[in-house]
């Protein structure tokens, strides 16, 4: 039982130790062969490569509807937020108020044919009104360049502007912003 390699090169194992190992191995193999190891192995676990195991596939499958539901919920919430914000901030009534306030400005004041236009100098305008008038006059000039109706000079009838036209006139020139800042308090009330 002593192999040649061991005899030649190394320490020899005592026969009694070798015998114990031989007996143990023989008895173990006898029992191992008697048992049905193959079928036990097949029922013990997945006899397949790791990447094809059932658990990860099931895990992936379970996450598809979860991600789908989460995505759908995000879309619904986003749409709800979008449409709630898209609601017009200004109602028709608010627009009318702005229109009325703008019409009250000297430059936009609509005069009826029966109104008498005071000649310049008869009325001493307040510094605020004067600056607004000046600003509106310059804005009117720039609007006239674009083909818009020009703001008439004092002493002439002011044509009726739509709200859109008024807004274009007001915000088309930076000087108007300065004029509007003078009427800040009035706009706050509006």
């Amino acid at each position, binding site marked *: 039982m002593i192999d040649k390699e061991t005899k030649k090169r190394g320490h020899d194992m005592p026969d009694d130790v070798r015998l114990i190992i031989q007996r143990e191995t023989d008895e173990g193999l006898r029992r*191992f062969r008697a048992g049905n*190891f193959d079928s036990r192995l*097949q029922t013990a676990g*997945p006899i397949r490569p790791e990447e094809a195991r059932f658990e990860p596939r099931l895990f992936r499958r379970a996450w598809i509807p979860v991600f789908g539901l989460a995505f759908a919920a995000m879309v619904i919430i986003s749409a709800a937020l979008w449409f709630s914000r898209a609601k017009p901030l200004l109602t028709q009534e608010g627009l009318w108020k702005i229109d009325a306030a703008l019409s009250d400005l000297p430059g936009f004041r609509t005069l009826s044919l029966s109104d008498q236009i005071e000649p310049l100098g008869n009325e001493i305008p307040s510094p605020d009104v004067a600056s607004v008038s000046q600003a509106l006059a310059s804005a009117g000039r720039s609007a006239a360049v674009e083909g818009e109706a020009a703001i008439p000079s004092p002493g002439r009838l002011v044509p009726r502007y739509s709200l859109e036209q008024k807004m274009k006139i007001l915000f088309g020139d930076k000087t108007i912003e300065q004029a509007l800042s003078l009427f800040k308090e009035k706009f706050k009330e509006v």
Partner: protein
Amino acid sequence: MTAPEAERFRELIVFKEDVFRVCLGFSRSYADAEDLCQDAFLKAFARAASLRQPGSLRIWLLRIARTTCLDHSRRLKRNPIDNVGIVPDTAADPQTPEDVSEANESFRRLKDAIQSLPRKQREVFVLREYGDLSYEDLASVLKIRIGTVMSRLNRARRAITAAIKERSHD
């Protein structure tokens, strides 16, 4: 089980007795050895796709068996309670109760001596004496030189012999 999986199963299961013998050497009972053998095969099937050289299937399988057994030994050391109550199987076919007792005692001494070996010597000893691997195969499984295999095996045999003699005197 698909056809390729069944084919791989047949290729691996050929070496079941080699794997079992190695597991028997590392463990303290037949039941443990069979469990370890099963674990080793399950790991092998799981990692079969990563096998690069199908020709060295036996070496590869024994390497997995060795790792599985060493992991098991480490777990036993960490949880000594798992080691309580392991009774060695009767290794021979004795005629008298005295023979049974003596055989069990010899078996216990051998197992204790193997377990007390350093890991590097233990794996060389078990793979050689239980797995019946040649020096070349041992060098392949352990990824060491043949000279190292021989020196470790020599030291392991001396230690086993000394431990058994010492325990028999006690």
